[in-house]
């Protein structure tokens, strides 16, 4: 909305100097009657005409709506900038005085404009708006600094700020594009599907502040909930708050001259992604006050919401599906996103699972999925053996407002570990079937929301193919009679006479423990032909095996732990003996088919 005024402002500035000089020549004439003033104008006198009835008009732009400009015309007067930041005052011809803009938390350059003996209309008496923000450049160890940003663009929903030191790296047109994208897409999409903030603070007009500056190159942007807290209360943590609705974007991710179309697409996704984080946090900070909520969303769940929102609404399928189709990381188990490591693979997996779920929900009910997920994060039970965040998602899917109910789905009522485990396994199985092209609803959805296709590229046709590696979808802890069991029905919550174990549900083949520890050779491929409706994944090379090893440390809870002097009361957990040799090697007769049973399941012994 400021776009037009900006151009007017620029053209006005270009006329400012000559007009000022002419004004100086005319000043010696003293008080002129309106007729004489008109004659001067007819002779080329300038940037503006004289006012009527002995008045003149001074106009300009202060870069922001709601700025109050103070001046004295006999008495102190004020004028407030309109929605486009424009202002205009009418004063008697020959007026002298000072025009000073002000707005809470803002500063202006120049800080004031002084006029003497004004005898003709003046335009382009502009100000630029600035504000100090704390930023974290994410460069280790800590790069806190307070910097003065310039307001580059403003519309009804956002302020787009740029750090003057970095602004040569991004064009004004691009900043305006991102501001308009937020207004027209990110705001309505996220507030409709996740949560609409009701608390606006630190910002006149209730706009969201979007800051562009250079941060560490591996980051596209971030939101930080501490901006919802009082700065003075964060001093003990050596942190700072901007005490406003704000998120931060990396100029270097938003600009790529060689591939700007991609950078723009990606940054549109980042706008929606970070705004989802902000709205999500808003819910817990300001809208669940007084409720029974005692915990926040898990990181994976929050990222799941953001990646799905950006994928659905900001065209990020065109970012993620190619990654899914080409990244070798999908053979490594890195798609376990329940423990967030910030792997790009995790973003891909999370976005695809989220879009898959949405594709299975009746269109009219889709706006309820994330809201219900958010509302489900309300408490935690006393059972530490199950991921409560997984329960929350399952509960959301079974909520009547969403009602995604595949065959075999159990209704979660008592949230026992068994039901959660089984339903999560079923969910993942259906997801993977969707990715292999046997779920036409998902393919249709992808085709309708991107230029990508799922089915052709992702149907595994040989033993060397893979579709997805959700191996290591760690569910929780259980007890089993025998950790050699591969039956998911063996899991039990009973502690009597059974062996404590970790349980994993996955699709496909898990290498043996010796395979994982042997990085000198490739892991042998299975020879069983793979059918189109199977999910098969296996490390095929040394490097991938090494990555799998890391993933195992994350997913399988088998990393060694050291007893320390600081922990005299606790024995370190022993290295569990891995008992996850799953027969079948991708043979769908072992349960990996699309029609019956669960996906593969494994148990690993754990210390009690």
């Amino acid at each position, binding site marked *: 909305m400021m776009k037009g005024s900006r151009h007017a402002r620029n053209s006005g500035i270009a006329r400012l100097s000559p007009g000022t000089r002419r004004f100086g020549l005319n000043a010696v004439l003293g008080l002129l009657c309106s007729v004489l003033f008109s004659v001067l104008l007819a002779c080329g006198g300038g940037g503006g005409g004289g006012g009527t009835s002995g008045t003149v008009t001074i106009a300009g732009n202060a870069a922001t709506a709601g700025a109050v400009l103070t001046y004295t015309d006999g008495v102190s007067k004020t004028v407030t900038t309109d929605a486009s930041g424009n202002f205009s005052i009418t004063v008697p011809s020959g007026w002298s005085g000072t025009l000073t803009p002000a707005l809470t938390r803002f500063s202006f350059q120049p800080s004031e404009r002084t006029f003497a003996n004004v005898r003709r209309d003046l335009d382009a008496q502009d100000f630029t708006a600035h504000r100090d923000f704390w930023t974290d450049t994410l460069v280790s160890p800590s790069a806190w600094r307070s910097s003065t940003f310039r307001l580059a663009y403003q519309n009804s929903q956002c302020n787009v700020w740029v750090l003057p030191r970095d602004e040569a790296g991004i064009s004004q047109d691009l900043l305006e594009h991102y501001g308009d994208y937020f207004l027209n897409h990110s705001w309505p999409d996220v507030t409709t599907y996740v949560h609409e903030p009701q608390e606006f603070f630190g910002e006149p007009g209730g706009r969201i502040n979007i800051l562009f500056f250079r941060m560490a190159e591996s980051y596209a942007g*971030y939101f930080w909930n501490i901006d919802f807290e009082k700065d003075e209360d964060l001093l003990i943590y050596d942190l700072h708050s901007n005490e*406003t609705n704000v998120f931060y974007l990396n100029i270097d991710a938003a600009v790529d001259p060689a591939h700007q179309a991609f950078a723009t697409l990606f940054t549109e996704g980042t706008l929606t992604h970070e705004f989802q984080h902000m709205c999500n946090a808003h819910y817990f900070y300001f809208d669940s006050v007084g409720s029974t909520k005692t915990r926040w969303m898990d990181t994976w769940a929050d990222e799941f919401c953001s990646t799905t929102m950006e994928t659905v609404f900001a065209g990020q399928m065109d970012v993620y599906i190619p990654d899914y189709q080409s990244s070798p990381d999908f053979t490594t188990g890195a798609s376990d996103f329940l423990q967030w490591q910030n792997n790009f693979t995790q973003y891909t997996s999370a976005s695809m699972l989220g879009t898959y779920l949405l594709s299975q929900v009746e269109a009219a009910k889709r706006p309820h999925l994330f809201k219900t997920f958010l509302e489900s994060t309300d408490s*935690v039970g006393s059972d530490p053996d199950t991921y409560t965040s997984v329960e929350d998602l399952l509960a959301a899917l079974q909520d009547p407002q969403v009602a995604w109910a595949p065959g075999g789905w159990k209704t979660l009522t008592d949230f026992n570990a068994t039901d959660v485990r089984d339903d999560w396994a079923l969910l993942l199985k259906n997801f993977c079937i969707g990715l292999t092209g046997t779920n036409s609803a998902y393919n249709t959805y992808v085709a309708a929301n991107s230029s990508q296709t799922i089915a052709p590229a992702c149907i595994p046709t040989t033993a060397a193919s893979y579709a997805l590696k959700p191996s290591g979808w760690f569910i929780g802890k259980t007890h089993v009679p025998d950790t050699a069991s591969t039956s998911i029905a063996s899991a039990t919550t009973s502690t009597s006479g059974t062996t404590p174990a970790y349980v994993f549900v996955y699709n496909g083949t898990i290498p043996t423990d010796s395979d994982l520890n042997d990085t000198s050779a490739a892991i042998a491929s299975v020879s069983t032909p793979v059918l189109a409706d199977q999910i098969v994944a296996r490390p095929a090379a040394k490097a991938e095996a090494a990555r799998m090893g890391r993933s195992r440390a994350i997913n399988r809870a088998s990393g060694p732990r050291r007893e320390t002097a600081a922990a005299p009361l606790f024995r370190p957990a022993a290295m569990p003996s891995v008992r996850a040799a799953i027969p079948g090697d991708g043979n769908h007769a072992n349960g990996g088919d699309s029609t019956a049973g669960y996906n593969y399941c494994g148990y690993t012994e754990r210390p009690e």
Partner: protein
Amino acid sequence: MTTARRRVSLPRACVLGAALLLCACAPPFPAPGSPPPEATPISWDIQGILRQVGSFPHVEMVVTGLSEPFGQGDYYVTGSLRKEISALPLGRIKVRGRVSRREIALAGTSGGKRIRLEIDVAAYER
């Protein structure tokens, strides 16, 4: 919508209760529901679920406590073991350390406060 869901099976709750009694060798505790003054840490064992919260990259580890001293809630992991604990698989954990409770005022007009429970972990057990 489900609210205030109850996920506690009685036998398990009893087991946890017994475990808490066994941990009663810790220093004197405040009575349930009467938290100690702010910034006055007390030593405590917390049995709960290790979780990640916050959006990347500002992720924090919390132990969602299933036991006292402050009732069920998220205890932010602090101290020298924080990095080590960050690398642990999520799930059940028992931590021992100094617990403190802080009130952080919210920005804006709500006048609300965020209660932040922290535990400076001295030891842990999976």
